[in-house]
């Protein structure tokens, strides 16, 4: 049975090619291309002061890699237009008498206009502005204290900046987006490709009617289901190996954990994902429905609720529940844990257990749902 499915799959050259090529290509595209750090925020400037100090202040934004300078505006109306057109996402207005006020030891207030359409980016941009302001303020304060109090640079510095923060980044010491993305992308590609392959395989038989041959044959339910699943599980596991090699070789992501643990978790996960595909294929009648439903069911929760982009801890309760009802989250924990943290089964056993439960539940469910005498 498995052999028959295997032959059928391998006969379709283009399909086979895509089945192996897709995960690898995706890893390359997303591994190199998906940058989650907010950088190069386009901004424009309205400088009403035109002083040396205002230029010095604005220069810090222009030189920052977080901002990308788009030009000067003549009035606020021009800034409005640029923001509405999404040409810029932030605007800085330096008031008149900026230099005068600071030189006189008075506070000065700069206005920033931010595009609020993407709250995450707005929030981060606001943070960058505050950080630049803080650094600029500290320098002004030190200079001011030296002038008015006759302190040395060192003394004034200790007053203004007495507390430093030493940040230690754990598990991903250089805080590379690729390091945190690539392991999760292994999950992402597996989660998308495997269920699709399986779902289409079964529904194809349903739609062409060849499933009636199965109904009338002596093949048992379990034989049919395992036969259907096996080739896709094999394809997916080959992909796991390829992706792992690429992650370690091409992207130089360190693998600190136990390979055996990682691989057995992958086997469990692949059983889950192909099981999802099989489940869907049993519920629908047409390939079109199978195709679309699988794609949405596989893609949307994986992008949103698996921890790929947003940590599960910062989801609201409803979304958290949905995240736990889905195998992707557990596998993300295991993949990131084995790659970056180097933790073993003692920490990851809950996730492994959850995956195993999913695999068992899914196969049980599909076994129940698949009857050789469908209602017509």
């Amino acid at each position: 049975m498995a052999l028959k499915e295997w032959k059928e799959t391998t006969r379709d050259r283009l399909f086979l090619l895509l089945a192996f090529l897709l995960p690898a290509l995706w890893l390359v595209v997303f591994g190199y291309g998906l940058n989650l750090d907010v950088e190069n925020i386009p901004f424009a400037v309205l400088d009403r002061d035109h002083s040396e100090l205002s230029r010095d202040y604005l220069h810090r934004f222009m030189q920052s890699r977080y901002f990308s300078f788009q030009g000067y505006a003549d009035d606020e109306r021009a800034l409005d237009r640029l923001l509405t057109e999404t040409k810029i996402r932030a605007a800085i207005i330096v008031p008149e008498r900026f230099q005068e006020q600071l030189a006189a030891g008075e506070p000065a207030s700069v206005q920033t206009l931010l595009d609020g359409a993407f709250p995450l980016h707005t929030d981060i941009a606001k943070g960058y502005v505050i950080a630049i302001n803080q650094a600029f303020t500290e320098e002004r304060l030190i200079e001011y204290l030296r002038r008015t109090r006759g302190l040395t640079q060192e003394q004034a510095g200790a007053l203004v900046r007495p507390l430093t923060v030493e940040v230690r980044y754990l598990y991903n010491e250089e805080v590379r987006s690729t390091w945190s993305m690539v392991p999760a992308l292994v999950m992402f590609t597996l989660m998308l490709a495997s269920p699709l392959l399986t779902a289409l395989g079964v529904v194809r038989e349903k739609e062409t009617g060849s499933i009636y041959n199965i109904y009338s044959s002596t093949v048992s339910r379990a034989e049919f289901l395992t036969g259907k699943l096996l080739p896709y599980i094999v394809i997916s596991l080959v992909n796991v190996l390829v992706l792992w090699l690429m992650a370690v070789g091409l992207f130089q992501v360190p693998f600190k954990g136990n390979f055996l643990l990682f691989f057995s978790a992958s086997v469990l996960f692949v059983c889950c994902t192909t099981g999802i595909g099989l489940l869907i294929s049993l519920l629908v009648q047409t390939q079109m429905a199978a195709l679309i439903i699988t794609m949405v069911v596989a893609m949307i929760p994986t992008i949103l609720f698996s921890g790929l982009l947003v940590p599960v801890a910062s989801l609201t309760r409803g979304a958290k529940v949905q995240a736990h009802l889905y195998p992707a989250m557990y596998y993300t924990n295991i993949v990131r844990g084995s790659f970056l943290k180097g933790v073993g089964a003692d920490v990851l056993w809950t996730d492994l257990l959850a995956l195993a439960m999913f695999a068992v539940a899914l196969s049980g469910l599909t076994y129940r749902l698949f009857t050789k005498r469908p209602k017509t």
Partner: protein
Amino acid sequence: MTARQQAVTWGRRLAAMTWKEILQLSRDVPLLLFLLYSFSLSVVVSGAGITMQLTNAELLVHDADHSHSSRELIHRFQLPYFSFAGEISDPREGLRQLDQGRVMLLLEIPPRFHEALMSGERTAVQVLVDTTNAPQGLSAAGYSVRIAGLFGSETGLASAGLSGAEAAMPRVSSAHRVWFNPTQDERWFQSIAHVLRMTTIFAVLLPAAALVREKERGTVEQLLVSPLSPFQIMFAKVLAMSGVILIALSLALYGVLHPVFHVPMKGSTGLFFLLTTLHVFTTAGFGLVAATIAKNQAQVGMMTLFVVGPMLLLSGITSPYESMPKWVQTVMTFSPLRYYIDITYGVMLKGAGLDLLWKPVGAMLLLGGALFGFGMWRFRRQFQ
């Protein structure tokens, strides 16, 4: 036959073909139910459930000082960014909890922290951040540095007796004005983003699958010997599926976005629907091109997956477009979703009209025309 009569029969045939597609789709009950779910309940869950902003980062504290200052500092790590996960007496316990992924940060305050601050010495606190998720980790580290820095400079200056004179110090502060979404309600962003994702997935898949199905079963030959032109066959599919998608979209708009999340519609509704139709057509063009290459639905599934995945992740709703590498931005000029994002947020939240949006609209028209033309050309060539 006069030209007018010809046009009428042409239109009738197209309408008949479109009606056939709608009938065929309406018999697929699971698919329709799923379509309904995707544009209603699913939007509610994703809209309300996701915050990409740093929220509730679990913070563990190891306070070796237990002084007034250390408590004051800890107190400043507050919701919504940080949530206090408890205090520990052994730093190794903190590392263990970080390993398990139960907390995201560990703040270590050294002994003599208060004393040093009061006597004008320099001192340091340590923050350990889990950066398995790099952007969130960086963001958390950034907030910690800012909070502690501000705290330091306030206490430092206060210890020198300067706090009263704070108003008369040369500080630069900034007044932020956030436009288009002043309360920073992330549900607006997320719910719209979800609708965009769904629209795109369905727009690629529905017409593509419908066309390949005919090819796979061989019914496309029957259609071609009928008096229908290849254009009518293809266009009818896109027309029927676009209609269905637009109905689903209005359901999401008037059933979820407005009543549940109070997302405003600042611009013109008519313009929004018109441009959505353009987006659906353009995106369908991708599906049609894939459908002319594929021989069966399994192939078309893989091919569209290949297109849809990058489109959803790299067009600018899941990750910031401006910080993408240049080559990604170049490739993404071929993604209709990239323009549609600017259009949707522009019309709905910013109230932009065609005078401001003509660039993305023009780009999309070009792209849609090219894709349709190419798909048509391939389709004709295959069957002649």
